[in-house]
């Protein structure tokens, strides 16, 4: 089964709307793109389209949160931190405000629109903010759980979502906790640590190379224990992300393991470049080798 994370988000926020009167939804004029239409129809008094004014949306959300509400701010991943960074820094994080940030269309998933709409740097920005929790679910099932969990967690949370249809690789019954990574496949030769829609590619590759696959659905705070116990067993690491190799999960894990347990590591991601238009999302992933085939090649090199 396949579903996009934004569809899952739309369903989850609607469910939250019904169960938690404190949950509000804000958008900077991308209501249909982030699947907020049902929420807006059902709860018009708790839905705000602020217009194409992302920074103001973040400030407003901080004020709402300081008054006890749980506002979910939605825009594209490229705008949420990129356009609003200082508002996130001062109005949200320096107030420890209970604001949830939803960045949709992450990585190359908005393939046609090109560089200005493709976020290769949003995690780097979000990970650098004190107080910020950074979550990047792997599929629609996990997205729904992540949205519900974010509402329960006090403090700023960034949810990085893809626009693409992604296969279900986790199950309804699987445990999901913010701050906890999960081992989706046991293996011996290498640990592949991935997040977001690329976890599915990691699983495909893992079958061929007997790899252990960690779904790093929370990047901050980092589940150090799960990572350490896996890499002590396999002795090698590949990280995989649809994000710049600078400042994302590869940098985070390399920094952590460099200190705690140095070992051979390959960071797979988008090199230090912006995106570009493509008719097909897969073409962009292939251009930068973000696929199962290339994971196997990289494995053979380390």
């Amino acid at each position, binding site marked *: 089964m396949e579903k996009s994370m934004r569809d899952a988000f739309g369903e989850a926020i609607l469910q939250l709307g019904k169960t938690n009167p404190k949950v509000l939804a804000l958008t900077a004029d991308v209501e249909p793109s982030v699947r907020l239409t049902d929420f807006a129809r059902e709860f018009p*008094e*708790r839905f*705000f389209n*602020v*217009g194409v*004014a992302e*920074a*103001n949306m*973040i*400030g*407003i*959300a*901080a*004020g*709402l*949160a*300081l*008054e*006890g*509400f749980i*506002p979910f701010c939605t825009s594209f991943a490229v705008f949420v931190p990129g356009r609003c960074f*200082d*508002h996130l*820094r*001062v*109005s949200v994080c*320096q*107030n*420890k405000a209970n604001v949830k940030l939803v960045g949709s269309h992450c990585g190359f998933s908005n393939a046609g629109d090109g560089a200005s709409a493709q976020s290769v740097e949003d995690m780097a920005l979000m990970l650098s903010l004190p107080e910020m929790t950074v979550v990047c679910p792997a599929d629609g099932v996990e997205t729904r759980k992540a949205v519900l969990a974010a509402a329960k967690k006090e403090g700023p949370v960034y949810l990085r979502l893809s626009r693409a249809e992604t296969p279900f690789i986790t199950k309804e019954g699987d445990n999901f906790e913010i701050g906890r990574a999960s081992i989706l496949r046991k293996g011996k030769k290498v640990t592949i640590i991935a997040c977001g829609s690329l976890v599915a590619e990691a699983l495909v590759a893992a079958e061929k190379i007997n790899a252990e696959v960690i779904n790093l659905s929370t990047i901050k705070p980092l589940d150090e224990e799960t990572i350490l116990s896996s890499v002590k067993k396999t002795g090698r690491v590949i990280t995989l992300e649809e994000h710049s190799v600078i400042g994302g999960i590869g940098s985070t894990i390399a920094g952590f393991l460099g200190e705690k347990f140095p070992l051979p590591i390959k960071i797979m991601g988008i090199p230090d470049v912006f995106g570009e238009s493509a008719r097909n999302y897969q073409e962009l992933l292939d251009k930068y080798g973000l696929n199962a085939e290339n994971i196997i090649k990289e494995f053979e090199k380390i």
Partner: protein
Amino acid sequence: MVPLTVSELEETARKIRSKIIEMIYHAGSGHPGGSLSSTDILISLYFGNILKFDPRNPKAGKRDRFILSCGHVCPAYYAVLAQLGVFNEDLLLSLRDLGSPLQGHPSLPHADFVEASSGSLGQGLSVGVGKALAMRIKQEKEKVVVLSSDGEQDEGSHWEAVMFAGHHKMENLNLVIDENGMQLGGETMKVLNTEPLVEKYRSFGWEVYQTQGHDFSRLIATFSNFNERKNKPKVAICKTIRGKGVSFMESKERYHACTLSEEEYRKAMEELS
């Protein structure tokens, strides 16, 4: 609170101004110009029965929310709160000390009496809008007052908030602009002309008031409008003098942000005694 007479307000202002000088001198840095220009505004809001506020319980449920959007003038804000008894006056000289609740710009995690952290310009009105929206949803009768500066009118996101508040007819939202005519780089008219402010706010759907910013009777009369609901947000543009009360600091560029020398400190304190 029993309303103070104008001469009592003036006496309070003199005391607050000397505290500001003392604080900035001891801290070794700070923003005297804007702190001194906004002193009478802050005193009018807090001592003129404009803000509903319990100094013994500054975050009590039924209260007006005040946000200092131009956070750099916080010495004036802190001195006013100390005068009200929110915290002990002795704390004032810890301004900018490591670990002090009196950070160089207001910080909620350091000082729980603060409604929202500030210091980066152009954000306070958005946060105020959020609070006003929340109070509207909660059907609370209280109001939000945001203090901004004329230099802050340069910030684009401030105007996003102005537009939003006008569009949504946020009648529980009030803005005060301390128009002291100067910003870090010099005179506001020369750096970036944001005039005509009155017409700008009106065209965005706001009720606009103008007043001289160092006359307590007029300030309090103007701010009294904040307690009325007019189906639109309100702004009071207050014409002030940067560095007001210390003759050699008035309208002088140097006193936007500076370290006060012992000589300057002594002279200023003499004038204010």
